[in-house]
């Protein structure tokens, strides 16, 4: 076992073993073991990153006769694995505080460990089938985590719906994977190379795309992410902000060589569309976590669009920065919810996540306020923050791609991208103003000492600092200056200078849009504005756009319609099974014992009352025939003579 293999095994297995230990034996006091194991895992991932930088580590082993699976750790995988381990470590620490006192906390840590294990496995897997295996395991662990508080039926239904939608998308991915492995004999991601165009390749590409859309909550499948908010907040932070959703983008990034141009075009379009739709949906939400969920979907839309337009590095860069500030936003939101939980734990009908009962927290939770503000600005894409760098890279890539393509779809995608760039600062500004500024709408006297304990404050500050631009790139204005970038992509694609002019245009345009967005949101939601004062009792929006936005384009109801349709098909098919197939089989006399009611004759034969059609047929002939044996002998003789006459007559012809 050479060193790389041990490091890899430790990185991937330590979180799992820690989790399993706490789940089975550890119990309450086992949590520290789990957190320590996660810490160890993170350190191992860093060492793995160092040991793998010069040459990637590949291993193959025979899974089933005819199929050989394999791992491949190259720099991209190692970097992302360390990112996932780091964020997972932060969540482990945060959950100690947030989940403190929950009676099933050992089960929670077990599931966290299992999720980290499957996510790391996904990043490291090389063979497409192994990727699919860990892909489904990630879906399964997210089902477990969302449905953690399973005694509340809404949360359990949320988990089921999330898994079902993922499963539907995974079916598409499975077809893609099988086509690749069996038809095109492309087995290993590391060995991907330019392929001549063939309809099979196109179909496989679409399969991969659907799989990525399912996991990264793109247009047809984004319904499950808001549902996933039912899980504990650290889980939403870990899974539904930083890691799991990035899997889709990671897959598209990894298989970019074999994605045909049409597939890329569709990806770009759907990415842009999702970004726009999610941004609009985030405008009118009341639940603090729902706003962040929709913003995640819209940022994912950006990343997918980035891959679609060919700006791979910036989309991966956006994934990196998004992981940090979105995790930071979720954890701070978690702290806010935690505060309201404790402030109001005596009156139970109070919803700790509804922004209508919040306000004026900047004085009560100063550290949380600062962290939320910094992460918010990074999300909105203000210069001097990491968000700006990566988003600007994607926008310029989209513009270059649109100009290069020159067709209407390209320009539509760019328009959608820029409109979303404007909307993002609006809804995050609204959230900051509603939660932290103005007067507190419910709690009249601030509850002292509710500031989260030191370890939580530390995590929030780390994430906030990571969102400053300096942490990601030297020049605050160069979208492609990501210091980690040249580590990841040895053939560092230098932006061709011919588009210098376009780069400047996007930079200027994006800065204007962001600032105008912030100004608009400030004007609408400044502390003493009419809207804020009436916000406490604000009901659902009435207007068409408002309703569309609040109900997130009615995606939930569309899913309900589809699943009800399926249910009806299954009910009718069961009726078919019971009434027709069962009976038609007996029609041919295969089974002589089935359905009684149709045949009204209740009789004393073998199955006390149950007569089937074949039995009925044979009975009627039997009865008719036995009349011949009726009592009167002369009738019997009559039958005899009749028979003989029939035979003799038959003889003549």
């Amino acid at each position: 076992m050479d060193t790389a293999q041990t490091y890899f095994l430790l990185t991937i297995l330590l979180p799992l073993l820690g989790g399993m230990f706490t789940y089975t034996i550890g119990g309450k006091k086992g949590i520290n073991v789990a957190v320590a194991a996660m810490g160890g895992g993170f350190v191992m991932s860093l060492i793995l990153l160092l040991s793998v930088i010069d040459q990637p580590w590949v291993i193959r082993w025979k899974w089933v006769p005819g199929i050989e699976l394999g791992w491949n750790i190259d720099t991209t995988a190692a970097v992302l694995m360390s990112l996932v381990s780091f964020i997972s470590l932060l969540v482990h620490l945060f959950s100690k505080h947030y989940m403190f006192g929950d009676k099933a906390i050992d089960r929670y840590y077990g599931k966290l460990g299992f999720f980290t294990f499957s996510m790391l496995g996904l990043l490291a897997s090389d063979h497409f089938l192994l990727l699919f295996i860990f892909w489904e395991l990630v879906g399964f662990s997210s089902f477990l985590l969302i449905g953690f508080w399973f005694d509340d039926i809404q949360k359990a239904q949320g988990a089921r719906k999330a898994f079902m939608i993922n499963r539907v998308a995974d079916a598409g991915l499975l077809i893609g994977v099988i086509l690749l492995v069996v038809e095109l004999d492309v087995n290993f991601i590391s060995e991907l190379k330019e392929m001549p165009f063939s309809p099979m390749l196109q179909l496989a590409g679409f399969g991969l795309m659907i799989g990525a859309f399912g996991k990264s909550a793109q247009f047809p499948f984004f319904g499950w992410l808001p549902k996933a908010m039912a899980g504990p907040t650290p889980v939403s932070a870990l899974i539904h902000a930083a890691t799991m959703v990035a899997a889709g983008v990671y897959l598209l990034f990894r298989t970019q060589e074999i994605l045909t141009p049409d597939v890329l075009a569709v990806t770009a379009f759907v990415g842009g569309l999702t970004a726009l739709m999610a941004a609009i949906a985030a405008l009118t939400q009341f639940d603090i976590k729902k706003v962040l969920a929709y913003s995640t979907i819209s940022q994912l839309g950006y990343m997918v669009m980035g891959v679609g337009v060919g700006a791979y590095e910036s989309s991966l860069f956006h994934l990196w920065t998004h992981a940090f500030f979105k995790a930071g936003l979720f954890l701070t939101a978690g702290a806010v919810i935690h505060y309201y939980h404790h402030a109001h734990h005596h009156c139970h009908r109070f919803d700790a996540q509804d922004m209508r009962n919040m306000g004026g927290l900047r004085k009560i939770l100063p550290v949380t306020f600062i962290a939320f503000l910094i992460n918010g600005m990074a999300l909105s894409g203000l210069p001097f923050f990491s968000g700006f760098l990566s988003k600007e890279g994607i926008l310029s890539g989209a513009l270059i791609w649109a100009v290069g393509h020159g067709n209407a779809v390209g320009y539509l995608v760019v328009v959608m991208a820029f409109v979303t760039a404007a909307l993002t600062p609006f809804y995050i500004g609204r959230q900051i103003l509603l939660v932290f500024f103005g007067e507190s709408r419910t709690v009249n006297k601030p509850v002292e000492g509710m500031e989260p304990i030191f370890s939580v404050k530390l995590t929030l500050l780390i994430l906030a600092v990571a969102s400053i631009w300096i942490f990601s790139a030297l020049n605050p204005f160069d979208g492609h200056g990501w210091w980690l970038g040249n580590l990841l992509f040895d053939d560092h694609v230098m932006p061709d200078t011919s588009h210098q002019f376009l780069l400047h245009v996007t930079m200027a345009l994006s800065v204007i849009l962001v600032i105008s967005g912030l100004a608009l949101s400030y004007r609408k939601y400044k502390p003493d504005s009419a809207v804020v004062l009436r916000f406490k009792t604000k009901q659902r929006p009435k207007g068409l756009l408002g309703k569309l936005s609040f109900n997130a384009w009615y995606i939930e109801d569309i899913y309900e319609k589809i699943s009800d349709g399926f249910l009806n098909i299954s009910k009718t098919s069961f009726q078919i099974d019971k009434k027709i197939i069962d009976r038609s089989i007996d029609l041919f006399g295969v089974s002589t014992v089935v359905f009684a009611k149709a045949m009204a004759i209740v009789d004393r034969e073998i199955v006390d009352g149950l007569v089937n059609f074949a039995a009925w047929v044979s009975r009627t002939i039997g009865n008719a025939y036995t009349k011949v044996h009726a009592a009167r002998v002369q009738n019997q003789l009559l039958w005899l003579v009749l028979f003989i006459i029939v035979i003799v007559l038959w003889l003549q012809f």
Partner: protein
Amino acid sequence: MLTNQLNEILDGLGLLTYELVLAAGALLVLIIGVLSKKIWLSKVAFTLTLLVSLWWMPSISDTIQLFDGSLVLDGLGVVMKWLFSLLAIWIVFFPNSRSHPPEFYFLILSILLGSSLMLSANHLLVVYLVVELTSFSAYILTNFNFKKQSFEAGMKYLIFGGISSALALYGASLIYGFTGTLSFGLMDFELMAQPALLNVGIILFIGAILFKVSVVPFHIWVPATYQESPTDAVLILSVIPKIAGFVLLHRVISLVQIQDTYWLYVLMAVLGSVTVVFGALGAIRQTNLKRLIAYGAISHSGYLLAALLVPFEEGVTAFVWYAIIYAIMNLAIFYFISVWEVNGRKELSDLSGMYISEILLSVLVIIPIIALIGLPPTAGFTAKFYLFTILWNWYQEISDVAILSYLIVLILTVVVSLFLYLKIPFYIFLKEATAPKIDKSKTSQKILATIFSLALLWVFLRPEILNKIAEQINSINW
């Protein structure tokens, strides 16, 4: 000329020792019955005659014509005589509520005599006489339950028999008229232009044999008679005259060169399949035990008839096997029925939940039931399997649609027959026990029941005895 005819008869008699012993025995039984009131004496005489008849069975090397062609003795006849006597011995052990009057055993012996003669009858007059002899003793036997219904059954059986024998006589007269002779050997149907009236005559004559063998149009008497006559009589009635009748039917049909006269061949195939189907269908709604088995017997004669349609070399071994196994099956199932009858279980519903009180009998009855259906672990399967193979092989040669449809009907009736025979174990095991009034069966009955059932398993696992019989028949060529 008269003298050589006389001494020809004398040395001919030498070969008929089996029949002579039976006749003498019957008379002996009758006299003992009249002289002493003790019944076991006539029983002893009855078994004695049977044993002696077996001992004196003539052994012949090849077929012999006796009395210038009116009687033909062949290998098949000898084997069948062995079967008849061996089967008849067992009826002494059958339990019945009231012991039979001595005449009962006289009549059984007379049926035995009639059937053995039927095996070798080769002359119209002899056939008529022998068929009448068996029928008359059967008519009387049905009354031996001395109950209201048994008289009625006897009467109906007699009227039915009377009509068919009258028609048969008319047919015989027509055959005699057209062929000019009574003995089968001399009859030559080719030179005649097959006038329609002769065909009618043949059919009417065959009717009498079909009556004995209970094939479709002439089977209507079977359910009532089997239901009402004493069980041991039914055993004899359902096996011995039927098998003898089939041998006779085969002789008559092969005489008319069955393959060339295509219509008789197809008629037999059609009648056979209708018998099988009606036998099975009729049984579905029966509730009386003996009546149920009666319908089963009708459908079994359909199977036996199928064995005859195949040309003699292959056909005969299949026929003999089916006959032997059919005899054993009937012996076993009728013994069970007579044991139950003595304990007061006549209807199917009386059997429900019987396995609680009588575990051994209820488990053992499964074996004859499975044999009657034809499922593997029992001899019934070998019989049917061999029959199907013969028919399929014969179909491969002449690929005639009548044979194929007959084979398919035979196979499908296995499913229907399962449905009817399965009622007995179904009521025994899967129904809750009803009237507790039924008393237990004695150990001697249990021993005999085990012997009969295990015989069926034994024949399946060790079929060598069937091989020996097959060799014996083939050695004495036809």
